[in-house]
C-alpha cells in the first residue's frame, strides 16, 4: 500500500489538464451549464468529439472499441478532472462510465456495432429510463410494460426523473415483460420512436435536467431487447456498481470549498465559525476521496467491490452536504448571481444523496453487508 501517484498517473492527469486548458472556452464557467441544458448538450458533443480525437474519451475501454485498456485509475483520474472542471462532457459521462461497458458485456453483436462506435466518438447522448412515479427506491415494482407482438414489443407506461431525456438519442429502458423482479427486461430504444413523449420538469437543479417520459404504444423491434428477457436486474446491478463510485463529486466540492474560502478571506470574513465549518468540510471531502480511491484501486486490480462501495458513496454524499451547506451559510451571495460555478455546484450537490439511488438504500446495504447486522424483517 502506498499513497503517492505513480509517474504514469501523474502524466495522464497533466495531459487531461492541458487538454482542458486548451479546449474549454475562456467564459466556460459562466455558461449556463446545467449538465442537461441545451447549451451544455450541444457543447458536450463538440467537446467529446475533441476528447475522442485526443484519445481521452474512453481510454479505459478495450482497444477493440476505441480505447487502450488503460484501467480503472485512468478512468477515475479523467473523471475527477472533468467533474472538477464542471463536467464538460455533460450526460456523456454515463456512456463512458457504464452504458458502454454494459453494452460490451451484455449487448448483441448488432447492438455493439450500432451503439458503441458513436459513443467512442463522443457523438451520442443517452438517458436511463429507470424510475417511475410508483417505483423509485423500490425499483422492482416498476410497471412500464413491454408486450410481445410477433417479433416486436409494444411499450406502455411512464418514466420520471429522467435526466438528459430531451437531448438523448437512445434510452436505456427498464420495462416489465412478465411479473416479479425476474420479469424486468432492458430495451435500447431510439428516442425518436413514435409514441415517446418527453416533458421537462422545472426543478431546483438546473435547466433541462429532469423529465417525465411517457410511453404510449411504442412499437420497437425484438432486436431492441438488451440481454435476455428478465435479465434487467443483473444488468442494472452491474451498471449501478460502476455508478456508485462513478462521479468524483468530492473533486468539485473541494475546489468550490477552496473558492468559497478565498472569497471569505478576500472580504475579511474567514473568522472562527467559518474556519471550523470549512475545516470539517475539507476533511469530509478528503475522506470521500480516499474512500472512493479504495474502490477504484479494487477495480484496477480486478478485485470484486463489496459493500465498501456503498460506504464510499455515502461518504461522498456527506462531503457534498458539508460543502454546499458551508456555501449557503457563509457565502450566500454565491446563490444570488454572485458566482456561477458555486451556484452550479450547489445545484448538483443537492442531488448527491438522491441521483443514482437514495443514499438511505446505501445505509441499508452498509448495515447488512458491511457491519453484518441482522436484516430487517420484510
Amino acid at each position, binding site marked *: *500500500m*502506498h*499513497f*503517492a*501517484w*505513480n509517474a504514469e*498517473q501523474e502524466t495522464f492527469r497533466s495531459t487531461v489538464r492541458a487538454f482542458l486548458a486548451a479546449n474549454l472556452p475562456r467564459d466556460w464557467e459562466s455558461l449556463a451549464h446545467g449538465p442537461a441544458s441545451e447549451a451544455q448538450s450541444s457543447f458536450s458533443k463538440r467537446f467529446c468529439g475533441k476528447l475522442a480525437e485526443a484519445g481521452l474519451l474512453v481510454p479505459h475501454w478495450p482497444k477493440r472499441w476505441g480505447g487502450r485498456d488503460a484501467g480503472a*485509475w485512468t478512468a477515475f483520474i479523467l473523471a475527477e478532472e472533468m467533474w472538477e472542471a464542471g463536467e464538460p462532457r455533460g450526460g456523456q459521462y454515463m456512456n463512458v462510465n457504464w452504458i458502454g461497458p454494459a453494452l460490451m458485456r451484455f449487448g448483441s453483436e448488432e447492438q455493439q456495432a450500432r451503439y458503441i462506435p458513436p459513443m467512442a466518438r463522443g457523438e451520442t447522448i443517452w438517458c436511463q429510463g429507470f424510475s417511475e412515479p410508483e417505483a423509485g427506491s423500490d425499483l422492482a415494482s416498476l410497471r412500464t410494460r413491454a408486450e410481445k407482438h410477433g417479433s416486436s414489443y409494444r411499450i406502455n407506461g411512464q418514466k420520471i426523473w429522467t435526466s438528459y431525456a430531451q437531448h438523448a438519442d437512445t434510452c436505456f429502458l427498464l420495462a416489465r415483460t412478465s411479473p416479479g423482479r425476474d420479469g424486468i427486461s432492458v430495451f435500447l430504444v431510439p428516442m425518436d420512436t413514435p409514441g415517446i413523449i418527453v416533458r421537462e420538469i422545472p426543478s431546483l437543479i438546473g435547466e433541462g435536467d429532469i423529465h417525465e417520459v411517457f410511453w404510449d404504444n411504442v412499437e420497437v423491434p425484438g432486436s431492441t431487447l438488451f440481454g435476455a428477457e428478465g435479465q434487467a436486474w443483473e444488468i442494472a446491478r452491474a451498471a449501478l456498481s460502476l455508478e456508485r463510485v462513478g462521479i468524483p463529486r468530492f473533486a468539485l466540492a473541494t475546489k468550490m470549498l*477552496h473558492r468559497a*474560502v*478565498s472569497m471569505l*478571506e478576500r472580504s475579511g470574513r*474567514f473568522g*472562527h465559525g467559518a*474556519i*471550523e465549518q*470549512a*475545516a*470539517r468540510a*475539507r*476533511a*469530509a471531502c*478528503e*475522506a*470521500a476521496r*480516499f*474512500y472512493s*480511491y*479504495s474502490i477504484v*484501486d*479494487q477495480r484496477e*486490480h480486478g478485485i470484486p467491490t463489496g459493500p*465498501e462501495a456503498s*460506504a464510499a458513496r*455515502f*461518504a461522498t454524499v*456527506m462531503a457534498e452536504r458539508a460543502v454546499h451547506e458551508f456555501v449557503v451559510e457563509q457565502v450566500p451571495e454565491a446563490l444570488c448571481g454572485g458566482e456561477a460555478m458555486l451556484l452550479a455546484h450547489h445545484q448538483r450537490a443537492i442531488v448527491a444523496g438522491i441521483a443514482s439511488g437514495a443514499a*438511505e438504500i*446505501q*445505509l*441499508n446495504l*452498509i*448495515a*447488512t453487508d*458491511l*457491519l*453484518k*447486522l*441482522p*436484516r*430487517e*424483517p420484510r
Partner: protein
Amino acid sequence: MDFRLTADQSALVEAIDKLAAQFEAKPTEFRGFALLGDELDKELEYGQYFDIAQVPELGALCAAMAVERLARLPYATEIALSMLVRPQLPGDWPRPLAVVENGRPGRFVAAASTILVIEGEGISLVRTAAGDAQPVESLFAYPMARWKGRAERTALSGDEAAKLRKWLRIALAAEASGLLQAALASAVDHLTQRKQFGRPLGTFQALRHRMAECAVLAGGVRWLALKAADTADPADATLAALHAQESATRIVYDVHQMLGAMGMTLEHPLHLWTYRLKALLSELGGRGGQALAVAEECFGD
C-alpha cells in the same frame, strides 16, 4: 496510488494479528476503568515492534497499521507515541512516552520515561525521574497522571516542534481509528444479540442507519490516518486528526445509545474503547485546534 499490501506489509499485519489474538478479550473479572496491558507491552518490546517505523521496508505506514490494530484490543498500552512519534525525536529518548499539554493530566504520564511537554506553541522534552508524576483517578480508560515537572527540559526548535505536532496528530488519528472500529464492533455484537419487541435490535432501521453512518465515518478516519502516515504531509496530518476527533465525538455518543444501560456498566468492555476516545477528544487543541491547523495548512495560500 496502490492500496494492495506489499509482501512486507502483509507479513507485518499477519504477525501483529497473531500477537493481538492473545489479548482480544477483556478478562471476565475485570471491572476497572483502565485495563493495563503490561504483558502486551512486553510482547511488543520482545518482538521489537516499537521500531517498525524505522525499518525501511515497513516505515510509518506499517507503524500506523499496527497502532490501529492494537488499539482495537481492550488493553491500554503506550503504543502510538512509541511507534509513530518517538522515531521523530531529536536523539534517543527512552519509551514509554507521554504528552503533558498545558499542565493537564496526561495519558501514561506515570509510566513514561520521556515526556513531551506542550505549552502553547512550544514543545520541550523531559527525561522523567521518580516522583515526578502523581497518578490521578479518572473516568478515562487510560492511566492518567499529573506531572509535577521539576526535571530539566530540552526545548525544541520551532521546526522540530511542528514536526512532532504533525506526528502527534497522525498517532492520534491511527489510535482513534482502531478504537472506533472496536467500539463499533462491540455495538454490532450487542445489536445482534439483544432482542426487544421480539426481534434483534439490529433489525430496526433507526438504529441500522445510525450505525451505518458511524461506520462510514470510522472508515474515513482510517483512510485519512493511513494516508497521513504514508505521506507525512502536515496538511494530511491535520485532516486526519480533525476527522478523527470529529467522528469520535459522534460515534462515542451513538454507540453508547445502542448499548443502553449495559454500556454504562464496568462489566461490559465498551468503555475501554469509548473512554479512551473521550480522552483523545481534547488533545492537541481538540476539534477547534485541529480546525485552525487545517485552515493554516490547507487554506493558506
